[in-house]
């Protein structure tokens, strides 16, 4: 049986964590992702940018109480990629 390749954009611990969090939400604040993933600000920012560049995540920058605020949401392409990734993952795990 041939294994389906795993999407390299998603097959990374932090990027997969971000997408897994976003898949159940309409949108999430940068600080929410920071708290839930336990990542550093710099690393989280880099990985969000990679997901954004792949078209998986939409990033909206606003101001909240005079401080910059980043809000992320999963795009339709991101949802599809996540579903495909999970399907491929099943192929590796099923006996």
């Amino acid at each position, binding site marked *: 049986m041939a294994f389906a390749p795993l999407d390299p954009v998603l097959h990374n611990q932090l990027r*997969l964590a971000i997408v*897994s969090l976003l*898949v*159940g939400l309409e949108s999430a604040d940068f600080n929410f992702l920071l708290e839930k993933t336990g990542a550093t600000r710099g690393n989280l920012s880099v990985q969000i940018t990679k997901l954004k560049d792949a078209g998986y995540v939409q990033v909206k920058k606003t101001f909240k109480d005079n401080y910059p605020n980043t809000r992320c949401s999963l795009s339709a392409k991101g949802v599809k990629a996540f579903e495909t990734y999970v399907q491929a*993952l099943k192929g590796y795990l099923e006996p």
Partner: protein
Amino acid sequence: MERELTPSESLKLIETMIGQAKQSFSRNSFYFLLWGVLLIVAMTVNYYFAAHSDPRGSWAWAVVGIGGGIASWIYGAREGKRQLSRTAMDRLMQWIWAGYLATLFTMMIGGSASGNGMSVGSIIVLTGLPTFITGQLLRFKPLAFGGILFWVLGTVSFFMGMQAQALLYIAAMLFGYLIPGYLLKCQEDGLRTA
């Protein structure tokens, strides 16, 4: 968090993160407690004045509507700032209640224009809809039962006189809003400290 993941690690990570996202919730009990108390007070005041043939009781509705509206708006704005994530369910509930208010006011204007007014029973029945849906969305049975109770008491009140309608309204607010709202607050407090 940079090393290569195994498929089982990936799956475990997905499960953990989805579980984490589920734990983010918005607090809704405040609105049921606030409006439960305010509407019971307004109907009690209205009932008292009506019993003494005094028309001033209707002012209670205006005071409660404006006061409750401002308090809800301030609380909603604060919660919005606190809330770091937003679910589709949050948005759905927001628009269901906005739609309910729009329908209620439209029907009140229509009732006033026709000179017949809007019966207490109609208000109770209409309030059952967003309450029931909210209960089902939150999977919180006391609130869903509260919605059903609104429908039952509203239907009964169609066959009753004005005084009985007022009492049924108070009962609906007590058992459909206030008590489920308090139970919901207990659940939310438990989730927050967990």
